[in-house]
Structures are given as structure tokens and as C-alpha cells.
């Protein structure tokens, strides 16, 4: 994601049509192409050939760390660092320590998930170039970067037109 690439984009204005086009493109052997849509189009992931996101694992482990930190923080401060007799309760009052443990579990998990998402999606980006302003409103695009195996502008342009793109754009930097 790091470097900007040049490439070719084909633009559709119907989500059903671009879904079919993406399917065809994948079957035609394109691997690095991507669809750009204003909203998540149902079935597009399979059409473009993207595997299930791995973020749940991150969430799971972050939750474990959060829970552990929460409980350990409370254990250490209450029973190790400075044990104080509070209300005649044991120093390590496990039942009373559950709520904070739980909250930290959730907090760690949520923040880690979002952080990972940002990381995987390369966000935040400062002022990235866009292909077409309508792609976040009502148009849909298929984008083939120059890193695609056997990439050539003309070939891709032709293929996109063949797939029914309403407009094909050459993009210098994306």
C-alpha cells in the first residue's frame, strides 16, 4: 500500500453490473485488481477474490491482554504494591475486580481492532489522489494497478471496455 501506483480504472454506475464484471476479471486471471465502491457491495469480496479479514484474531488476543492487564493491575496495586485493609475485605478481592477487568478487556479489544483496521487499510492517509469523486457517491470502479502481472495499459483498457465499463480512465497516480 505504501507506494502510489499508476493504473487503469473502469467506472460503472450500477453495483450489480460491476459485481459481474469483477467476477469476470478475476476469472480472467487478474489478481491485484480492486473494486472501489461507495458502499460495501454484497458479494464483492468473493468477486474480487479477497480472503476473510484476519482482524478477529487481533481482537481476540488484544482482549486477552486487556483482561490480563486489568486483573494484574488491580492485583498488583491492591495486594502487592501497597496492601491496605479496605472495609475488612481481602487484599485480592476477586469479585470486586471483575468489572474493571471486563472493561479493560473490551477497551483493548476494540481499540486494537480499529487500530489494526487502520493499519491494514493504510489509514490515515493525507490527501490521497482519487479516481473519480463520484466513487464515494453513486459510481463504482474496477481498478487495475501497474503491478498486475503482465500489465499493459491498452490491454487493460480494452478488457475493461469489454466488461462494460461506462468510462475507462488512465490514472497516473493512485
Amino acid at each position: 500500500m505504501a507506494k502510489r501506483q499508476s493504473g487503469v480504472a473502469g467506472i460503472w454506475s450500477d453495483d450489480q453490473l460491476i459485481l459481474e464484471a469483477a467476477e469476470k476479471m478475476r476469472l480472467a486471471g487478474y489478481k491485484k485488481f480492486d473494486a472501489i465502491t461507495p458502499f460495501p457491495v454484497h458479494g464483492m469480496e468473493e468477486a474480487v477474490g479477497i480472503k476473510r479479514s484476519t482482524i478477529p484474531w487481533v481482537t481476540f488476543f488484544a482482549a486477552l491482554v486487556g483482561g490480563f492487564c486489568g486483573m494484574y493491575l488491580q492485583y498488583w496495586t491492591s495486594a502487592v504494591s501497597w496492601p491496605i485493609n479496605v472495609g475488612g475485605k481481602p487484599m485480592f478481592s476477586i469479585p470486586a475486580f471483575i468489572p474493571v477487568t471486563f472493561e479493560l478487556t473490551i477497551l483493548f479489544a476494540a481499540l486494537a481492532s480499529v487500530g489494526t483496521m487502520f493499519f491494514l487499510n493504510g489509514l490515515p492517509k493525507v490527501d490521497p489522489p482519487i479516481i473519480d469523486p463520484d466513487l464515494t457517491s453513486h459510481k463504482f470502479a474496477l481498478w487495475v494497478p501497474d503491478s498486475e502481472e503482465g500489465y499493459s495499459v491498452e490491454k487493460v483498457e480494452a478488457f475493461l471496455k469489454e466488461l462494460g465499463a461506462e468510462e475507462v480512465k488512465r490514472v497516473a497516480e493512485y
Partner: protein
Amino acid sequence: MMDRNPLILGNKTYKDITDDICEPVERLPGKQWMLMFFSAKALFLFYLTSVAIILFTGMGLMGTNHPIGWGTDIVTFVFWIGIGHAGTLISAVLFLFRQKWRTSVARSAEAMTVFAVMTAGIFPLIHTGRPWLDFWLLPYPNQRGPLWVNFRSPLLWDVFAVSTYATVSIVFWYVGLVPDFATIRDRAKNKMRKKIYGILSLGWRGSTRNWSHYEMVYMLLAGLATPLVLSVHTIVSFDFAVASLPGWHTTIFPPYFVAGAIFSGFGMVVTLLTLVRIGFPKFKDYITIDHMEVMNKIIMTTGLLVGYAYCSELFIAWYSGMKYEQYAFINRALGPYWWAYWIMFSCNVFVPQIFWFRAARRSIPIMFVVSIFVNIGMWFERFVITVTSLHRDFLPSNWGMYEWSIYDAAILFGSFGMFLTLFLLYLRAFPAISIAEVKPVLYVGKKRGGH
């Protein structure tokens, strides 16, 4: 399968949706909005002044006293936190249940959550005797030994619960907003606007890879927010339930509080959305009368749940055989604060029963009035729990009355100024309906128009 009404009315295209929703953000505010905003702002400034006077002079200006250590501040805190719950519930729980109708109302409900939690969060901070030392509630390393905090105190659980809830709510809300910010960015004609929304959108593109991670995270957040939202009001209820007072020390409190929170939250959503519908007539196609009806059904249901909780409290007090508990509940209903109890009971249990009638459920004026009653009732519920339990506890020699002062009123009503100011600003600056979420449900309940 039943035929269902379309979620979005009118023959809209994707572009129409974008245009409709972005419109309030892109045009200059109307007179109506300005009037409301400046009224709210004035109230907000009044609120800040009142808080400043109280901080300067002392908590003694409020009505709290001995034996009633908690009053308007805590009552209103619980009230606002409760209101916050509907937003997360709509966006997270209904998301998990795949309730597609949530898409039109989720954004505003979430915004309401965030602002309600912000409004609520002020109260525990200012209710202390020395608010400038509130940071002592955080377990940070210090030069006092180090001296930590008491993790056994429900107030500390509150610190973690409310701050986690605020954080996760804001993150959830913001994650939802990112694609919409990108939409506004791309539509922007003005450079400044493009820049601001460009920063807010974090450079969102909308590629399928992005959407794939995004949807996954959205679901995960929904999954995390659901137990969180339940835990938060559970923990708020622990402030009372963990204490030993008759009327507080009750195991029913967590579910009772959560039900009450959903109840009051939906009440507030209905209040706000009826106003949004009036303010932005185009939104009527997105926030349809069907949406409102569904929410009214929830209000009625949760109202019954709350009513069940009231009755079960009374039953358990009698059944427990504990004289303090029995007295506390007799005193609630028949003691000096009987009026608060019966305001609570009527507003929360009796009034929503009108929603058994379909006509009432679909009548904007009726639902508006009912939602206001619900919120009044829910404030009184917290008042009843907090004040009437404290004012007569174990030793009759200590019994007393709450000394309601003008500062209590100022703080209570002023907090609405803060909330409304934020909400009105939000309506102008942020897309009030989730653009990216509404589009996929455009054709729900409709035949898809071919090209």
C-alpha cells in the same frame, strides 16, 4: 415471509441519497436551526456559569445534604448515561440481529449516545467536593508511595466503564462516519471544506479490501459494544446495588437499569428524530413512520419491563421480610416523596401503554408527547432511587428531606443546553444518516428498478 414496507420511501437513486443526506451539511443553516442553536447555546452558557459558581463556592449550593449525599448531579448523570444506551443498542445490537431498519436511525442515535455520555460524564466530575482533584480516581504512578486507588469501589468501576464506553462509542461512531466523510470530501467544492473533511475521512477510498476489513471491524465493534453497553449500566446500577442501603441493595438493579436505559434512550431518540424530521423534511423518506413505529414498540415493551421491575421490587421487599427494605418501599410509594414515585410510575408504565394502538404508534404528535413523558418519568425514576432511599434509611434519627435549590434546577436544565448544542452542531456538520449504510438497503421492500 411477510411483505414489508420499504425502508426508504420515494423512488431514490444512489445519487439522490447522497444529495439528500449531504444537503444539510452543504448549505447554510436556516433560521429555524439558528434559533434553536442559539437558544441551546444560551442554555449551555448558563449551564457553564452555574457549574462555575458551584465550583467556586462549594457543593453546598446544591440540594444535597445529610443524609442525602447524592442528588441532582448523580440523578442526572444516570439519566444521561441511560439515554446514551439507545444509540449503542440500535447500532450494535440491532446490527448483530441484522435489523436493516436500523441504518437510517443509527447515526443519529449514536451521536445522541456520544453527546449524552459527554453530558453525563460532566456530572460525576462536578458532583465531588473537590473536582480539581478528580484525577485522583485514575490509577497513575505518583509520589505518594505510590498510593493507588480502591478498585473495590463501584465509583472506580464507573470510571473505567464510562470512559471505556465513551471511547468505544466515539470510535464506533467515527468508524461509521469515515466513508461518509469521504463522500462529503469528494463532493466538496470549497478547498477548506475538502481539506477538513479530507482529514476527517482519513483518506478513505472504498476499495473492496478496505471494505472487507472495515465491515469486519464494524461487526467486531458491534459485538464488543453489545456486552459493553449492558455492562455500563450494570456498573452504574452497582453504584447503588453494591451499597447497603435499603432500596439500593437489590440484585434486580442491573437488568432493571439496562431496561430503563433502553427505554429512556429510545424515548430520547424518538424525541430527537421527530424534531429532525420536522427540521429536515427530506429525511422523512429515510426516517419513515415505520422506523418510528418500531421504536415505539420498543418503548412500550421496555416500559412494561420497567413496570415489571417496579412491581418485582415491591414484591421482593415484602417477601424478604426485612423491615428496613419493607419500610423503604412503603415509604417510596406513600412517604413524603410519593409524588415522585407516582410521576415515575405513570410516565414510565401507564403512559407508554397507549402504543398498544397502531394509530398512536404512528402519530407523530402522540409519540413526541409520550417520549417527553418517558424522559420525565425516567429522570424521576433515578430521583426516586437515589433520593428516597437515602432520605430514610436505617436510623430514623437521621431521616431528612432533600433541599432542592435553584442550582439543582440550573444544572439539570442547563445540561440539556449542552446536549442540544452538541446535537444541533452535529446535524449541521456531520451526515445525519449513514450514507454508506443506507444505500445497500435502498431496495429492501421494493422491486429493484432495472436499467
